[in-house]
């Protein structure tokens, strides 16, 4: 039986476009799971996880690895009968009045390391939890934001790339979340001892 954190990470991978291994590599999965639980009315996150899982998830791969290398993602692909699992997640979740806003907040959480409060209308319809306010989850969460990886950059004030790295083109931008994507990509120029300035300068 796939546990809750695995299901959380698998859904997060579909929503963010980053491989599960990359998400685990940030070290933030459990923190985000807790932060999400604390910011949502009871049961909402489980509803979201259920919507993001194949109906057979429990029985299809008992005890099976949900993680790295799990190239064939069972999850939503099964649910959508073989179509693109991401598109299926989009249909099943992002278009849903209740789960859509929660999923979007989850995407922002992974990209920014910060929780974004759900809209007022959502609160009126489905209830509010005390921690559902805009906040940076922690100093570590800020630094782990996927937005910096997506940009081929690094969080301002942390994980610096080394003297002169800024003079080189940005790191090759991987958009493919294929199995085997390294969890923590080293910036291209990290540790480069000397940097020659561009000939044009």
């Amino acid at each position, binding site marked *: 039986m796939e546990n809750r954190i695995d299901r959380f990470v698998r859904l997060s991978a*579909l*929503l*963010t*476009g*980053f491989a599960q291994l990359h998400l685990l590599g940030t070290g933030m999965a459990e923190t985000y799971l807790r932060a999400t639980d604390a910011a949502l009315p009871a049961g909402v996150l489980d509803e979201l996880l259920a919507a993001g899982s194949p109906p057979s998830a429990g029985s299809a791969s008992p005890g099976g690895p949900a993680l790295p290398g799990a190239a064939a993602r069972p999850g939503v692909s099964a649910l959508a009968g073989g179509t693109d699992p*991401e598109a299926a*997640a*989009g249909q099943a979740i*992002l278009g849903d009045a209740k789960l859509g806003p929660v*999923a*979007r907040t989850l*995407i*922002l959480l992974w*990209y*920014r390391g*910060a929780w*974004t409060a759900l809209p007022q209308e959502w609160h009126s319809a489905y209830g509010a939890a005390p921690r559902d306010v*805009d*906040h*940076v989850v*922690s*100093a*570590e969460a*800020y*630094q782990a934001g*996927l*937005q*910096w990886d*997506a*940009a*081929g*950059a*690094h969080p*301002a*004030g*942390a994980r*610096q*790339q*080394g*003297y*002169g*790295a*800024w*003079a*080189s*083109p*940005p790191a090759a*931008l*991987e*958009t*493919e*979340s294929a199995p085997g994507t390294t969890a923590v990509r080293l910036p291209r120029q990290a540790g480069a001892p000397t*940097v020659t*300035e*561009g000939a*044009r*300068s």
Partner: protein
Amino acid sequence: MTEAAEHEEYDVVIAGAGVNGALIAKHLTHAGFRVLVLEAGPGSAWSLDGYSRHLDHFYAAASKGPESPWPPAVAAPQPDTADIRSGAGYFVQSGPDKYGSSYTRAQGGSTLHWLGVCLRMLPEDFELRSRFGVGHDWPLRYGDLEPYYGRAEHEIGVAADVADQAHHGIEFPDGYDYPMRRIPLSFSDQVLADTIDGMRVTLEGESIALQVRSYPAGRNSVPRGAYQPVGAVDADVDRHDMITHLGERCAGNTSCTPICPIEAKYNAGKTLAQADRGKLRVLAQAVVSKVSVDPVSGMVDGIEYQRYADPASPRHTVHTARGRVYVLAAHAVENAKILLASGLGGDHSLIGKGLIDHPALYAWGLSPVPVGAYRGPLSTAGIEDLRAGAFRARHAAFRFDIGNDGWRATTGGPDSSVVDAVTKQGLHGTKLRAHLAATLPRHVRFSLAVEQLRSEANAVTIDPRHVDAMGNPRPVISYHIDDYTTGGMAAAAEVARQVFRQAGIEDCTDPEAGGWFPSVRRDGEVFRYHGMGHFGGTHVMGHRAGESVVDTHQRSWEHRNLYVVGSGSFPTMGTSNPTLTMAALALRTAEHMTEALAARQPIRQGEPSGF
């Protein structure tokens, strides 16, 4: 209640441990004089432990503005850029325009969050009135300050190459070069230079060629010769050498403003750590409230200060410090405030009058090719060509800062772009990631910093109705941006559009979509501006007493044992960031004070020089 500092005799008492106070303290202690520094804010940034707590504060802050790592003590409140919008906060803005800049009241001062750009003023900036018929001349010329500029560049530790900086009439002595090599130009600078260098723009009929030019920066790079870069300060270590090896070279943290995590960027704590500490006493959490003047001699006979133990509380005790000579180095606004709160100056005084800034516009866009945004020192180059020219007779000069921090300052990127992609464009998964990977590295930002002329209507005053938690006055600011400056804004905005076209950059400048900024109008056009943190003009320097507050040594005309130092002494500021120039002036002042104190002449009012 009394305390030790009250019973001790000092040669010099300095208010403020910013770059000005620190430079004067360093030089006077090494000349053998006993110096007391009274600092309003906490001294936490002076130890590595304390500094890292400020860093954590920044990481966890929801908004990462210039003030985010530096929360003020209740006893020493400070302006916050967010207050400009709300109208609340420390400054009382009496208009008509909003003054957009801020500063930090903590030991180390505003250099804790400055960017570190260290341009010299141009020779023509000192002679605005005689060359262009506008503004004011300085009582000093570029040549008078040149030797001190060189020394200031070594004190601050400036990285640049003379070969890049000798333009617009700036001259360096033969054989001179900066202590460290220039910071490598960012990839973004190189991409822009490729398309922009050599393009021409026309200002008031004058055709000017543009070029992307490296900035001199107070940021450690590769040293020249025997120069030893100054690393982070740690007051908790061996008291004889507080300078550590951390931060001896910039590592590309991309957060110079508001906090350099490794102190590769200069801050005034480094200078203070280099003082002769056997001769120095630094009292943090000591707010100077008044200078006391002997009514007969006109001499300052003491400085009153308020000491507090808990930064979260206004509870304090009041004390007086005494020395032979006094220095106000508390920042342009605070210097004026202290003088006014002391009842000095009288009706026709110029104290507080002539407040200037560099009101600045943002222009931002999407480059056709990736420029590698969000990496490196926040800015490594600019376009300097429009800082000088005959057009200055008609409108303000300006300077382009090229950002390496994408749209962070303008829209709050990358966060704002992520939010937009997810909530407005409805993207998720690999499409979201691909969209961000394709756009974020193409974010380009310019700041267009515009010169402002001195006007006595622009002023810092005090009003007993507006006081802080300690009962000290809050600065009341009257501020107007005149046609000379809005003319410069209009020209700057037009040049930005031309540069974007030339470089194929999609212009995304949309103040409504960006952060909130105050606005000013000209001929129906609205300009949204922000402050650059470049305060000036509040205790202006001049040749004669009636026309100025201090002389060319920043010595008060009325109180001859009082020096009032910093950019408040500037009659004009041209387009250069002020700190290098104020450091040069501070070194000149320290030299003068050393001679005068050493001569041990009795201090008499009205003497042109020497005590």
